[in-house]
């Protein structure tokens, strides 16, 4: 046991902040005392998100939460490696066509690009779709099949949620998963190489 964090009488987020500070200070085994269910749930969640275990013991009006570090915190851990090679290729599609100029040609090209991508070895680690690029992954688009094929090869396809909202297309998403700027940014920053279309 590296210490006790007494967060009784404190409202959220204070109990989580104190837990975070204790863990940041190098503690690996702490006991957090809280006196309300919101704080109990929040501290447990925070512990789990940091790769810790959390065991709650109820004593009268107090919850004693034993927080133990079992692994390195996710933020200290490198991003998961792509299969065996260590190469993390990211393909970025910020438009629903490929190249500037003729739109019709751009549509043909992007479809061909995605079909060819599904045959590349190894396939990319992740794909990121934003701005009008999200339209490639919605119902009625003839690139959905190619994207689904890529997904079945294990390619993670991140589709910008803000963009889907903007175009009113969230209900029509047919491939990939709705994502946010945090995940998109993390993906782009942890890429070993990226290809932007």
């Amino acid at each position, binding site marked *: 046991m590296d210490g006790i964090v007494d967060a009784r009488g404190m409202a959220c987020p204070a109990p*989580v*902040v104190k837990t975070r500070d204790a863990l940041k200070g190098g503690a690996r085994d702490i006991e957090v005392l809280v006196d309300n*269910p919101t704080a109990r749930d929040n*501290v447990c*969640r925070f512990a789990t998100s940091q790769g810790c275990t959390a065991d709650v013991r109820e004593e009268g009006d107090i919850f004693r939460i034993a927080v133990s570090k079992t692994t390195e915190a996710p933020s200290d851990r490198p991003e998961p490696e792509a299969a065996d090679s260590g190469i993390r290729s990211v393909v970025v599609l910020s438009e629903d066509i490929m190249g500037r100029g003729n739109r019709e040609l751009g549509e043909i090209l992007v479809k061909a690009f995605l079909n060819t991508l599904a045959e590349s070895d190894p396939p990319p680690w992740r794909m990121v779709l934003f701005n009008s690029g999200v339209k490639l992954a919605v119902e009625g688009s003839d690139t959905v099949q190619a994207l689904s094929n890529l997904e079945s090869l294990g390619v993670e396809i991140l589709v910008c*949620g*803000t963009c889907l*909202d903007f175009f009113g297309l969230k209900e029509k998403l047919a491939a990939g998963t709705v994502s*946010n700027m*945090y995940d998109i940014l993390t993906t782009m920053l942890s890429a070993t190489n990226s290809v932007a279309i």
Partner: protein
Amino acid sequence: MGPEDLEKVLRLLPPGDARQDVLVGLDTPDDAAVFMLDGETALVHTLDFFTPIVDDPYLFGQIAAANALSDIYAMGGTPISAMNIVCFPCSLGMDILVRILEGGLAKIREAGAVLLGGHTVDDEEPKYGLAVTGKVHPDRIMTSLGAEPGDHLVLTKSLGTGILATALKGDFLNETEMAGAIEGMTRLNVAASAAALAAGAHACTDVTGFGLVGHLLNMLPQGGLACEVSASLFPVYEGAREMAAMGMIPAGAHRNREFLSTRVEVSPGVEEIDRDLLFDPQTSGGLLIALPPQGVEAFAQQMGGAGSWTRIGEFTQSPGPVIRVNP
């Protein structure tokens, strides 16, 4: 104050006066009251104020004002005048108060209303908001009741401000990282209100402290109506899901859940984070609108590019008022 405590207090008070000129008063769960002057004009009254939700005083002023003005828009009204409500510690620099009031004034002007005055109280923790008066034609009032089976449920802003504000307080993110939510909270519900009126909305309310569930329950009368919502359709501010997973659930969400969860059926497939969003108290949230199916297209056209809106569910026939949440 949580919904349970408020209900307890209101139960101890005498019922509202039954007068013909009180069109919306104490007896309905609406945020604003409507008083009829004559056959052409009714006044809409509301007030709302709270403690800072962001650190920047100008943005806080804007958010608090947009939040207070929203009650007028939810009733289908047009704001005409506003009064400042201010609690402020003298020890804090007066330049901060000036910035708060400037932010509020900017939103009052954007709404086409005029600031007429206000009242200040010396207090340990700053609080700011507005008392707003609006006008509405007595035949064009929207209230929280009136949805019919088959109506679509539309939400005009994203969810997650309670979670993000808690994270901001704990320094888990900064104001730049919650820019999306700040844009949403400072946005007036004026376009959404006009679109709802134009599309022949059956009912309307706004999402604030009691969360999506608390305010949606206000749209369900004692019998005959349920609402089915799909968690996968919830619009969510950037960062809110991550922060919820890190334990940034505000105490208000817990209070809402404790009091309201018996009236919500959550399917087992719904993720924990979506469950949190159901009860997350919102600041300056969007309008919840019951639209007849034939009105959806008109609504979409009216909204144009004026902020995001999402169809999140549908009203159905039911023996008792209940919200069903599907994945």
